[in-house]
């Protein structure tokens, strides 16, 4: 009787120690689910989802406080990916949060810019350079196309421009299957 108890107790101690060690050794920093959701989100940081950035939206999704169809830049594909990751039902993009648009960048009309720095303060990724009463310009390669700089501009000199296709960015298209008339 006592041997059996000792064996079981010893087993419990060893396993407990192993689990305790593993908990310390393989400790996961942060919430891995939030990271995974954040990796799917397009990082436009536009706030169209109603949260102040992609990370807060990811946290809200992880907590179940937000729907997965609130991200217009992520589009339909993003919603599908989130649905697959979270095992939730796919939903079409919610219209109140915006519509999916082709990717574009902000362009400042440098002749009209008065150097008020309002757009610089609005840009979530610091992609606008300039100083007070100096001309501002957008670093096109860093611009996420969030459109947050357009509203604050007092002289309406910022517009969104679609990204033109170049030889470097061109992609092979999906093969078109020719339809044949059979009857």
């Amino acid at each position, binding site marked *: 009787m006592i041997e059996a108890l000792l064996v079981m107790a010893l087993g419990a101690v060893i396993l407990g120690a192993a689990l305790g060690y593993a908990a310390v050794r393989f400790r996961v920093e942060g919430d891995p689910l939030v990271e995974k959701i954040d990796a799917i989100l397009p*990082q436009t*940081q536009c706030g169209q989802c109603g949260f102040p950035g992609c*990370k807060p939206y990811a946290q809200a999704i992880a907590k179940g406080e937000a729907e997965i169809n609130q991200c217009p830049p992520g589009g339909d594909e993003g919603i599908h990916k989130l649905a697959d990751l979270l095992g939730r039902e796919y939903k079409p993009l919610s219209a109140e949060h915006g519509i999916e648009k082709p990717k574009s960048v902000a362009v400042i009309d440098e002749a009209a810019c008065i150097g008020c720095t309002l757009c610089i303060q609005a840009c979530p990724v610091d992609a606008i350079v300039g100083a007070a009463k100096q001309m501002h310009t957008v670093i096109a390669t860093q611009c*996420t196309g969030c459109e947050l700089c357009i509203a604050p501009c007092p002289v309406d000199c910022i517009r969104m421009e679609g990204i033109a296709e170049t*030889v470097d960015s061109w992609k*092979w298209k999906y093969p078109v299957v020719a339809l*044949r008339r059979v009857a």
Partner: protein
Amino acid sequence: MIAQLFRFKGGIKPNSHKDESTTQPIKLAPLPPRLVVPLRQSARAMARCIVEPGQDVLKGQVIAVAEGPLCTAVHAPTSGTVRAIEPQPIPHPSGLPAPSVVIEPDGEERWVERFPFDIATATPQQARDYLRDCGIVGLGGAGFPSHVKLGPGEKGIQTLILNGAECEPWITCDDRLMRERAAQILAGAAMMRHITGARRILVGIEDNKPQAIEAMRQAARELGEKEIGVVAVPTRYPAGGEKQLIRVLTGIEIPYGKLGTHFGVQCFNVGSAHAVYRAIAHGEPLVSRIVTLSGNFERPGNFEVAIGTPIRDLLPLAVPRADTNRYIMGGPMMGVGLQSLDVPVIKATNCVLAGSPTLFPAPPPEMPCIRCGECAKACPAELQPFELYWYSRAKIFGKAQEYSLFDCIECGCCSYVCPSRIPLVDYFRFAKAEIWAREKEKAAADTARERYEFRLAREEREKQEKAAKLAAKTAAGREKAAAALAEAQKPARTPEEEAKHALIAAALERAKAQKEQAHPENVSDLTPEQQAEITAIEARRAEIREQAKPHLRQDD
């Protein structure tokens, strides 16, 4: 010299159609009225233009310098005047324009001063830089910069392979080049061997080109070197693929993610060897190349064409037949259809193929895959194209990558044998492009995330700094007040301070006395009436003040 040849798996044997264009020697193509030289000559990078519109240039003059590791210089193909630097359509599957230099030839073909490069005294690095500045890229079709390939790699290069296989049907530019300029090719190969420090040179030529093999063997004998071997390899497409030729000649199978240099082997096209010879022995940069005009032409043949010659100006040389309906740049297996005849010949253009509805009929409609496995049997990269096809078609790109999509060399064997006539390569190209685009997008998203998080951190830091500043200011104010209080409560002064204080008090006293002595002028000499009037006014004022007092209080 070679004991044994090896085999690569798969491959096909299409009708080679070489005889049409090999009967005639290489002819010099006349200069067109306008040359369009794209700044993007080597596959991946664009050179920086250094000429201006209106400037006169000489043949071989540098018009764009190399920038970045994968870039080569671009030269004026003839003497003339730069007319414009503008986007022009280039031979690319997209048909999109890219920055180009438009040159109007003056017809005089005046060269810049040319100096042979002394390869015996130069270091390999100097030689590679020289070849980069001569604009030498691989002339087999991919246009990869040769100076990069001549680098030592990880373990150095022991075997230099010259690729004269020319496995694609219709193309014969390397064949004619080997027949006519064998000695120059081998001289160029010897120079490359010197630069890389390789031990031996192997020339692989498909056995359907006996004249070329004979010419190269003759040249090798005349050179009297034992370490140059000219090897006839079995004719089987794609024997001219880099990995396939290395496999056939050396038995080395290059795994995914590795290059020939990892195994001491490097492969160059025979045309590239010829260009290296011209550059080093004659100081001539790469300004022209041999182009095969074949297919639906009356007089097909090979022509030495200045880089930048528009295809439209090239066609009359071979006289296209009346029923020609399309043109392909490159061979029938891997070439791309030309969307415009205004595109110029670039360094990677080896062939212009004319097609007609009878010669290259439109592809029949695609049928469902029946999983027969013919494509897997034909694949020289030992892939399973049918699996790749499912995943590419369904856009499950992760799975496609698991099945080694990026090992596909897009040779077209699978599409060629497919009984359902599925354009498999189109699907693979689509999947590859999509994966690359996604990777780029992901990199951009990562940068955006990083920048956003940095911004948040910066805003937080600024807030803290502001708070700290405010706190410091408040603290400073408090300190000042405390100091004043301490001053007021200070106990008895020292005798020195007492003396100072007395001095100040005396000075104040003097000033007061002085002030009292000075009277205002307008009230000094007053008559009694005036004095009485002033007194009366003062009294009235006092009275009014008294009366106003209760009102003021009410207001409060």
